[in-house]
């Protein structure tokens, strides 16, 4: 008998059926992973049976032999308390801000009726999840911990009462790439050690495929395919699974065909960005220091690093939308001034694309106005009719139909919004695009399409790109060279393949291992 057994699960919210006919099992000591795009019903599937969503579940749901659906609310609460533990995506919001780590851990331990744990026992629990100086941490509050540490605390709390089933909803999506592997390894260890069954939800195939025993692929509230992970990944039976696997970037896939880079276009000489510390504290923060990098005509450079490494700050400095306090940015040998002092001809050369496609578009404007905004300023020589003709061309270059011109941003999906943002960036024919995590907020299938679109722009239009990302495997599909940043400095650079094959700096090794 399986530890957790769902048969023909259906979930309705407000009369709408959002999950249809899903069956899956979780065995003790094993991990079942559900993957799918956002809106595929994967979170609803794993949270609704425990009453954690507004939906109602029907079907047969057996946990440890008890049917959750036929028991009453009190009994359900009791089962939830004793047998299950939950880990959520946002560790900061999932921990209570006004309680110390120790207090929360104690509450979690006692929820299944255990006796009050001693301080020593609580510290041991924290040590078990890999937190150093555990005794000191018991008195700290969640905001003092880093994202990775918080997630470890949440895991410690989730397993403190010895549950049999651990439900993890995107446990690593909010974390830095290099931390993801560590957290997943930790979950694996705990699973083996305590015989926990784990139900894992993720949108990212790459992050779960080495950890899950069973893989469940969902699309639009339906189960597409399920089976042992290795089998599903190597021999996918369904077309959707095949596309999902093809869309997930891997370091060992065949090298992509890229354009041949030309002459030197952009060079930074000892560029630094310093900020004054906020508030009354004195001193400066060196967000970027002594950075020298080059980008050639038609070349793509990947700028990778963890969060806080200064890669976005550098990208903004180059794009002329952030400050530069030291050094020089040279365009074909001529110095580009910083931010407000750039004239329109300089603005035409470099255009940015951002991570959050929805926030990149003014919600009050129509797509047509958004796309032509650069033209109105940078090409005042064009008449209105010419501008809208170019807007049409730009939309078709990003594979959007003409009728998108009159749509409002709110009516666009994430992928469509990012296409509009790219259309705006390329409409005034710039020569360099600064892509700040342009695909990381998108679902894998959509992200892969955007990567493909960018590669087409690179090959056909000879566009140069600065690709800022934390995902080396995705960057490899687009970039010739790579530069790795840590604490504001470039610690390693070289051609893409050479750095992946032989990473020298610890930061690079971590990032490569995480991909």
């Amino acid at each position, binding site marked *: 008998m399986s530890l957790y057994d769902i048969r023909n699960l259906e979930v309705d919210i407000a009369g709408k059926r959002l999950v249809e006919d899903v069956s899956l099992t979780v065995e003790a000591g094993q991990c079942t992973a559900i993957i799918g795009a956002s809106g595929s019903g994967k979170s609803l599937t794993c949270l609704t049976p425990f009453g954690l969503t507004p939906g109602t579940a029907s079907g047969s749901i057996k946990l440890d032999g008890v049917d959750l659906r036929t028991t009453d609310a009190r009994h359900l609460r009791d089962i939830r308390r004793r047998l299950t533990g939950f880990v959520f995506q946002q560790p900061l919001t999932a921990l209570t801000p006004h309680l110390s780590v120790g207090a929360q851990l104690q509450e979690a331990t006692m929820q299944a009726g255990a006796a009050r744990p001693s301080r020593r026992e609580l510290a041991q629990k924290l040590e078990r999840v890999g937190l150093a100086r555990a005794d000191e941490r018991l008195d700290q509050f969640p905001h003092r911990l880093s994202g990775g540490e918080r997630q470890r605390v949440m895991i410690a709390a989730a397993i403190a009462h010895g549950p049999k089933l651990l439900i993890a909803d995107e446990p690593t999506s909010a974390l830095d790439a290099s931390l993801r592997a560590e957290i997943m390894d930790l979950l694996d260890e705990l699973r083996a050690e305590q015989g926990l069954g784990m139900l894992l939800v993720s949108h990212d195939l790459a992050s779960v495929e080495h950890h899950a025993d069973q893989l469940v692929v969902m699309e639009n509230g339906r189960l597409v395919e399920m089976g042992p992970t290795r089998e599903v990944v190597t021999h996918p039976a369904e077309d959707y699974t095949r596309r999902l696997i093809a869309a997930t970037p891997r370091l060992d896939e065949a090298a992509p065909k890229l354009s041949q880079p030309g002459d030197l276009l952009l060079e930074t000489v000892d560029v630094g960005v310093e900020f004054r510390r906020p508030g009354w504290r004195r001193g400066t923060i060196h967000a970027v220091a002594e950075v020298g990098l080059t980008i050639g005509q038609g070349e793509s450079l990947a700028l990778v690093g963890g969060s806080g490494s200064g890669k976005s700050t550098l990208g903004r400095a180059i794009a*002329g939308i952030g400050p530069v306090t030291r050094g020089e940015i040279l365009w074909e040998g001529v110095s580009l001034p910083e931010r407000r002092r750039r004239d329109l001809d300089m603005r035409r050369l470099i255009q940015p694309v951002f991570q959050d496609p929805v926030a990149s578009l003014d919600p*009050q404007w129509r797509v047509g106005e958004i796309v032509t905004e650069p033209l109105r*300023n940078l090409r005042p020589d064009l008449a209105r009719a010419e501008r809208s003709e170019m807007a049409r061309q730009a939309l078709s270059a990003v594979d959007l139909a003409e009728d998108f011109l009159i749509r409002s941003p709110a009516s666009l999906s994430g992928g469509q919004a990012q296409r509009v943002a790219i259309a705006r960036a390329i409409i005034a024919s710039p020569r360099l695009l600064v892509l700040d995590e342009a695909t990381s907020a998108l679902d894998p299938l959509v992200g892969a399409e955007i990567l493909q679109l960018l590669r087409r722009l690179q090959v056909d239009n000879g566009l140069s790109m600065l690709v800022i990302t934390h995902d080396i495997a995705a960057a490899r599909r687009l970039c010739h060279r790579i530069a790795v940043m840590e604490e504001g400095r470039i610690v390693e650079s070289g051609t893409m393949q050479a750095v992946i094959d032989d990473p020298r700096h610890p930061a690079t090794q971590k990032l490569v291992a995480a991909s």
Partner: protein
Amino acid sequence: MLRRHFPLALVLLIAALALWLPFLLPWSYDQIDWDAVRAPAFSGSHIFGTDDIGRDRLARLAAGTRITLMVAMAAALVSLVVGIAWGATAGWIGGKVDEVMMRIVDGLYALPFMFIVILLMVVFGRSILLVFVGIGLVEWLTMARVVRGQVIALKQRPFILAAEAAGTPSRTIVLRHILPNIAGVALAYLMLTVPQVVMVESFLSFLGLGVQEPLTSLGILVKEGADDMDMAPLGLLLPGGLLVLILVCLTIEGERLRDRFS
């Protein structure tokens, strides 16, 4: 629509009545009916009777409502224009300019408002213009703070950065990107300012610092009614009830708007 926005509809109805009644009534607000001093309600052509010197209560109520709403609208307008301009400028430019501009706001906040108004009245004499100036002087402060916060939050949004990269001049970014996106919040706070101003004006008038006789406002009517409330309770209940009704309705609408945008 009407059911959802019943409070707003009610205020609009009151305003419309205040504007129309003078044309329908046989009595004007400062006209004395010597034959009917202290007339009870429904006596002859005086629907709500007359006050202690024979002026028609309904006509005076309409006139008072008119003045009160007018002061409220004018102050709201000042708060809207000055507050948005000040807050948007401070938030957009940032740095030292922002520091200085917001310290000025803090300074004005710290002034004892009543004291300033009384001082103005004493120095320049009582006039309705001074009431506008006095109330306008303080009511834009909150708006400026709210707008500044919104602008600072918007400033770092990618679409503003994209506009900068697209070469859009600062002025255009503020006018075309930022202001339309804060309009909703500004409108909500405007709706909350109006009842506040009504309160302040009524309070000033109640103290005898507002508009001058024979012109009247709801505050003055409440005061007159309070002086004479054992003899004619209607004189207090009518303007007082109307004031409460307007305040409650506007506040409900304002809070509803604010909840929608925040």
